[in-house]
């Protein structure tokens, strides 16, 4: 006996040590993309990739408020200069001229390969005459002031063609030389980080650097501009959201775990009034949490912070088992622990199994985050139950006993007897809730992925405002062109350009971005190159073309040289852009995916937003796919919501089957299920009544009501009934409530949704089960 005891405790200790060792090697993440579904289709893959590390995910918008316009502008200039020296940013733009010298030179040097106006017609004698006459006439215009310098090398005006092509209809407002909001109260910067938006660690470092640099530059300038003391920096963008969400999730996971544990400890202390009992009661909990984290770490390679945040609920539920053991075995000591194992363990075992069944459904979820929650709970609950059954009784010292709780228990039993008069209310409540669900006819499920977004509405508003001010591409609409290789994709994109330009002219679009503007297809470049005449021909044509024009051929020598150079120049390739911010831009616009090449053309919405119906009508038949990332993501989310509804349905069905098998009596099964079903219906109806819709995590919460509630219901189906059983159930329930109920107050929607369903649901399940109990000797 002693040997067996030593063996069990030894195995447990070994497992603990092993678990702790594994724990130190676990990787923790708070990347919200764990709650982005794994994407099956190509379109959805684009979506998820874009959200994770596409160019749009690297965008960081910065606003400087406070102080005065000139002080903000100087701050913006100094800050931009400082950020440009860092390796963290692929591009730093603040509206200053001269910010993109390298890029400008690259484009200017390659104007004859880039400009769509370059054709052999344009370089004929007549074409040259017309183009040069135009350029000369344009010198008289205000803009002539700066086109004048370009004329000798670019008399056909290709640079202006490029500028017109690359600039949208509107550009951002300039105030004191840098980008500013339209109301002039904010200086704006647009940054692209090198790190992907989903690389939260890197984004956090970048954000820290940005804040440090801002503080340093402000301190430097304080002597000149005292008003800068009031200057503030605001940053938004996908990466910033990720960092802030992680901060919040981490913070809340920690806060709620500590607070939940304190409440549970206080609850247990008020019942046990003994530190020894209390600590022993927490042994299965600690084992369970450890097992859960280690299992997830082994199974998924990393542990999501939300999973850990969820741990608080596991504490609430895992502590139940020791509560059962201590209170149900009563004041009888170790001997009665053995007695407890005989009388109560089968019921608890069944309860654990139903919980495991419920959580197992989550394992099959397409959301890695949900699957983690499932595995965490299964491993945690199983470990906690096993430790309670096998290890905890062995750890109890001889003569161990919980203080006499019979007075408390009797009072509770009396209270319950009174409550039972309300028995008829339970089915009435169930029917009322059901009727309400039918009558309200509200959409039950929220199909908007934003419902899960951890980004507060205020941050989202700031982001939208800055994007609108800067004309920054918003993440929403993309035209996607696909082809066998890059060249094919670029050619297709070039064929599409006139069609899209027409849409811009019609005002359906404010503009669009296209990779072929920067990197035309090799075919287009070669054709442009071939249309350039050789030096002798060009001179001859110029001589004729310039007759009657107020410019001497000798003034255009730089043009002749530039054309000759362009004829010899190597064609542009992605490598030509290395080291410039255009490389990053191209990377985002040209992607390779599973052997297919894609060009992504972000569409800019006009002031009134994009009329998706008119747009897809105008583009019907064009070899492109219009992707509305918001709709696509919602559709994707909708599909996973449907999947989750099925999974949760299967989970509940599995629980019912398990109960049916174990109870072997339709009447008992009915009695076990009625409180659970009623609790689920009442909670659902309650959520709809307060005006909410349900999202994926509410659904999981409903499953949890059944999984947890079944533990309570089973006790009322069995024949064991005593005041102490009731008391143990109430305390276990309160502990669970402390765990889940707290989550309801979380600002992270995922956690709040779980808490606000499972918390009240578990309480109601116990209440209904107790009220419905027909056992008379309680």
């Amino acid at each position, binding site marked *: 006996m002693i040997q067996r005891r030593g063996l069990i405790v030894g195995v447990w200790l070994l497992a603990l040590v092993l678990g702790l060792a594994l724990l130190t090697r676990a990787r923790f993440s708070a990347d919200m993309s764990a709650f982005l579904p794994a994407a099956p289709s190509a379109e959805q893959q684009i979506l998820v990739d874009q959200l994770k590390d596409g160019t749009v995910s690297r965008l960081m918008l910065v606003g400087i408020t406070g102080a005065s316009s000139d002080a903000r502008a100087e701050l913006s200039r100094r800050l931009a200069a400082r950020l440009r020296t860092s390796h963290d940013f692929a591009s730093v733009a603040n509206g200053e001229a001269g910010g993109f010298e390298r890029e400008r030179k690259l484009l200017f040097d390659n104007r004859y390969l880039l400009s769509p106006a370059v054709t052999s017609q344009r370089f004929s004698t007549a074409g040259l005459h017309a183009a040069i006459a135009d350029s000369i006439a*344009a010198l*008289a215009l*205000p*803009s002539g002031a700066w086109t004048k310098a370009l004329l000798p090398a670019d008399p056909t005006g290709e640079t202006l063609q490029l500028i017109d092509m690359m600039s949208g*209809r509107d550009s951002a407002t*300039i105030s004191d030389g*840098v980008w500013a909001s339209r109301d002039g109260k904010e200086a704006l910067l647009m940054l692209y980080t090198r790190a992907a938006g989903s690389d939260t660690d890197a984004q956090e470092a970048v954000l820290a650097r940005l804040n440090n640099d801002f503080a340093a530059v402000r301190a430097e300038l304080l002597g000149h501009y005292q008003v800068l003391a009031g200057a503030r920096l605001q940053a938004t963008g996908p990466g910033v959201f990720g960092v802030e969400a992680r901060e919040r999730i981490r913070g809340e996971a920690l806060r709620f775990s500590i607070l939940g544990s304190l409440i549970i400890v206080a609850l247990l202390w008020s019942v046990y009034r003994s530190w020894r009992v209390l600590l022993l009661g927490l042994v299965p909990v600690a084992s369970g949490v450890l097992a859960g984290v280690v299992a997830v770490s082994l199974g998924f390679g990393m542990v999501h912070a939300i999973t850990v945040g969820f741990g608080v609920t596991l504490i609430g539920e895992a502590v139940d088992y020791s509560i059962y053991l201590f209170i149900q075995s009563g004041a009888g000591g170790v001997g009665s622990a053995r007695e407890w194992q005989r009388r109560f363990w089968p019921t608890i075992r069944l309860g654990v199994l139903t919980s495991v069944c419920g959580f197992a459904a989550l394992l099959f979820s397409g959301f890695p985050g949900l699957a983690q929650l499932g595995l965490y709970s299964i491993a945690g609950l199983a470990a906690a139950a096993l430790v309670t059954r096998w290890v905890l009784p062995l750890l109890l010292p001889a003569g161990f006993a919980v203080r006499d709780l019979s007075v408390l228990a009797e009072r509770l039993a009396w209270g319950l007897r009174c409550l039972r008069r309300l028995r008829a209310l339970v089915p009435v409540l169930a029917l009322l809730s059901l009727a309400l669900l039918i009558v309200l006819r509200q959409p039950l499920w929220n199909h908007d992925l934003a419902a899960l977004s951890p980004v507060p509405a205020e941050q989202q508003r700031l982001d939208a405002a800055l994007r609108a001010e800067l004309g920054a591409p918003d993440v929403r609409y993309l035209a996607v062109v696909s082809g066998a290789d890059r060249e094919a994709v670029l050619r297709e994109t070039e064929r599409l350009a006139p069609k899209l330009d027409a849409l811009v002219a019609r005002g359906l679009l404010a503009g669009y971005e296209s990779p072929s503007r920067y990197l035309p297809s090799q075919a287009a470049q070669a054709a442009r190159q071939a249309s350039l005449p050789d030096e002798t021909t060009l001179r001859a044509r110029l001589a004729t073309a310039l007759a009657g024009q*107020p410019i001497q051929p000798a003034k255009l020598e730089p043009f002749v040289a530039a054309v000759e150079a362009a004829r010899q120049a190597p064609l542009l390739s992605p490598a030509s852009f290395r080291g410039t911010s255009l490389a990053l831009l191209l990377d985002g616009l040209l992607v390779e995916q599973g052997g297919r090449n894609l060009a992504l053309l972000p569409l800019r919405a006009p002031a009134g937003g994009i009329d998706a119906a008119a747009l897809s009508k105008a583009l019907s038949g064009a070899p492109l796919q219009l992707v509305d990332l918001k709709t696509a993501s919602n559709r994707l989310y909708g599909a996973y919501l449907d999947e989750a509804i099925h999974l949760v349905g299967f989970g509940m069905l599995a629980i019912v089957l398990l109960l049916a098998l174990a109870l072997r009596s339709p009447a008992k099964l009915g009695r076990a299920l009625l409180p659970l079903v009623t609790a689920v219906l009442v909670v659902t109806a309650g959520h709809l009544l307060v005006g909410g819709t349900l999202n994926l995590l509410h659904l999981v919460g409903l499953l949890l009501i059944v999984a947890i509630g079944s533990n309570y219901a089973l006790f009322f189906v069995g024949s064991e009934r005593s005041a102490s059983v009731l008391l143990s159930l109430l305390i276990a329930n309160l502990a669970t409530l402390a765990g889940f109920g707290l989550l309801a107050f979380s600002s992270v929607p995922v956690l709040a949704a779980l808490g606000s369903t499972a918390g009240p649901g578990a309480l109601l399940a116990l209440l209904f089960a107790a009220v419905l109990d027909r056992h008379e000797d309680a």
Partner: protein
Amino acid sequence: MTRRFLALLLCALPLMASAADFDLDRLLGQLAQTRSAHATFTEKQYLTLLDKPLESSGELAYEAPGHLEKRTLQPKVESLVLDGGTLTVERGGKRHVLKLQDYPEIAAFIDSIRATMAGDRRALEAAYRTELDGRYERWTLQLTPTAPKMLAKVSRVKISGVRADLRQIEIVQADGDRSVMSIARAAP
């Protein structure tokens, strides 16, 4: 004799006073009275690059104190709008918003006129050395940039006027290019 001399002196006093009183403050004070104005212009540009001067024409509009618009109608439509510190160029249906101090050649034209019309002595003297000649009935204000960055582009701006009306603006650029804009006030 003495009496006649005194009488003469007395008669001459107002004249002398008016000549002595005509200074930059008085001119700018008068100019600042104009709250809004419309005018047409013709402009000749003498560019070293070209054999012949370029001609253009269009309209000017001014709204005190910070809004100035130059709408070229010939040979092509293009508008240049200065509003506060923002310069907007609109051509071919596209708007380009520019930073004034990056384009000193444009800034010279547009801001010197704006500041003169607004009677904004502080703005004028912040950027230029001023030299006023003539009388209120016919004056010439020569502006020479003080900032080296601007001086590298613009040698001087010469604004001539009659009373509170601007009549001609001549801009001489550092590279020898020169433009002369003649202004005719449109009938109100």
